[in-house]
């Protein structure tokens, strides 16, 4: 009885707010800030939406939060970049299957003054070692996102325990890529960022790309259908259509054609 009332109230509210709740006319994609902030999704989605009539609603948060939200069933598709975490997500039954979609790469950005003298390098581990040695300020996402996880892997490889330096020369913002870049720009610090967010970022200040091209900086994106066995509400048909489209020649071509300042940001590599 109470449930009925709540439902009726919610429907009334929904009507008042003008929300349409037609079946499967839309899907929710849990994704990362990099795909949204770079403008990629705004670029490729209209094509899919026009073709299928399916509205793609993107919730852009850090990879960690996106995975958590998807585990709660609050999304139909997961599009993120943290391969290990994604594979774990599928192995635990939260997702159906993981597919490679595209990659871009990470770059190390830092101030023009470059106190650690890492400019022009192609070895991320060596660069991080130099930063640590000179105790030059470094700003980290610190939010368990895909970028954050990648960054931590490189520190580990360099044999540096950043936990010791936390709050000292190593600063964790606990926020998204853009917010973190704003901090780095404000304090002339080094930061690891995905290239797409960096190119689209409008507040670079004195920051430049200093290290790029290391194969270790390769950043793979994967797409996963949230498992309807765990969450029966998942809009399977529409979500599967979106995934199929992303992996299709058409979708892959759309990704490849997205350019910012003449530069291609994402490289499709679906098999």
């Amino acid at each position, binding site marked *: 009885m109470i449930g009925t009332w*709540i*439902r009726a109230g*919610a429907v009334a*509210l*929904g009507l*008042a*707010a*003008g*929300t349409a*709740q037609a079946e499967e006319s839309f899907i*929710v994609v849990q994704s990362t*800030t990099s795909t*949204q*902030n770079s403008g990629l999704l*705004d670029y490729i989605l209209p094509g899919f939406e026009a073709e299928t009539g399916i*509205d793609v*609603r*993107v*919730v*852009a948060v850090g990879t960690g939060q996106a995975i958590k*939200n998807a*585990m*709660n*069933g*609050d999304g139909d598709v997961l599009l993120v970049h943290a391969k290990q975490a994604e594979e774990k997500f599928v192995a635990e039954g939260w997702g159906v299957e993981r597919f490679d979609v595209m990659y871009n790469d990470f770059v190390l950005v830092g101030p023009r003054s470059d106190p650690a003298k890492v400019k022009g390098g192609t070895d991320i581990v060596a660069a991080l070692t130099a930063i640590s040695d000179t105790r030059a300020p470094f700003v980290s996402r610190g939010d368990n996102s895909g970028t954050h996880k990648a960054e931590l892997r490189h520190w580990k490889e360099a044999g540096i325990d950043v936990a010791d330096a936390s709050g000292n020369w190593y600063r964790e913002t606990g*926020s*998204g*890529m*853009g*917010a973190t*870049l*704003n901090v780095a*720009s404000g304090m002339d610090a080094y930061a690891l960022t995905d290239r797409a967010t960096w190119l*689209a*970022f*409008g*507040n*670079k200040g004195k920051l430049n790309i200093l290290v790029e091209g290391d194969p270790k900086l390769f950043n793979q994106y994967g797409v996963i259908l949230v498992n309807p066995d765990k*969450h029966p*509400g998942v809009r399977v048909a529409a979500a599967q259509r979106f995934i199929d489209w992303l992996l299709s020649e058409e979708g892959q071509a759309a990704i490849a054609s997205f350019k910012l300042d003449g530069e291609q940001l994402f490289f499709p590599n679906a098999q």
Partner: protein
Amino acid sequence: MQDFAAEISDAMLLILQGDAELWAIVLLSLRVSLLAVLVSAVIGMPLGAALAVGRFPGRRAVIVLLNALMGLPPVVVGLLVYLMLSRSGPLGVLELLYTPTAMIIAQVVLVSPIIAALTRQVVEMLAEEYSEQLRSLGVSRLASVPVLLWDARLALITALLAGFGRAIAEVGAVIIVGGNINHVTRVMTTTIALETSKGNLALALALGVILIGIAVAVNALVSALSLRAEQEGLTHA
């Protein structure tokens, strides 16, 4: 930095020229927050009046709780509403997460205590003044509630506007339960957060100017109303 001034004027121009997408965002903000205030008024005003006029055990405790709830952190409210509306949550079947309705619900949770607490204060003061007179006229405690609400109308409108100010300027809760989805749940504050994270500080600031403009308009309205109230002797003094 010299580009920044130019960027701001560009952004302001974009807004003033009536960029359709931007105005859709502004309108959604207004729609969500106005509806939230409306629902909060329906909940908060009778509750506040009941607390002002009613006498029951635990009344003081409820008032203390209500006053404390006025300062609820939006992020916590967002998280709680998210946990309720998530597909894994108790109300998941309603499929309300990432809709404007979810944002309205979060804002109602934030605003209702404000309206209820302010209503309680205003009505209690008025009830004290009216008490003997209304009883003399044979108006029962229950029947006095609409009389008090009506006679406190100007102060109550001020309370509503205070609630609206809180709702429209809030970002922490709506970004969690709305998801900041383009064309669906993207409002002024979440756009400001997004554009800031993209480093588009000028656009973010221009939207901030609109938000400030709304805040100023609301406060001017409050001030004009209280001035009128004073002139007409409708205040408590």
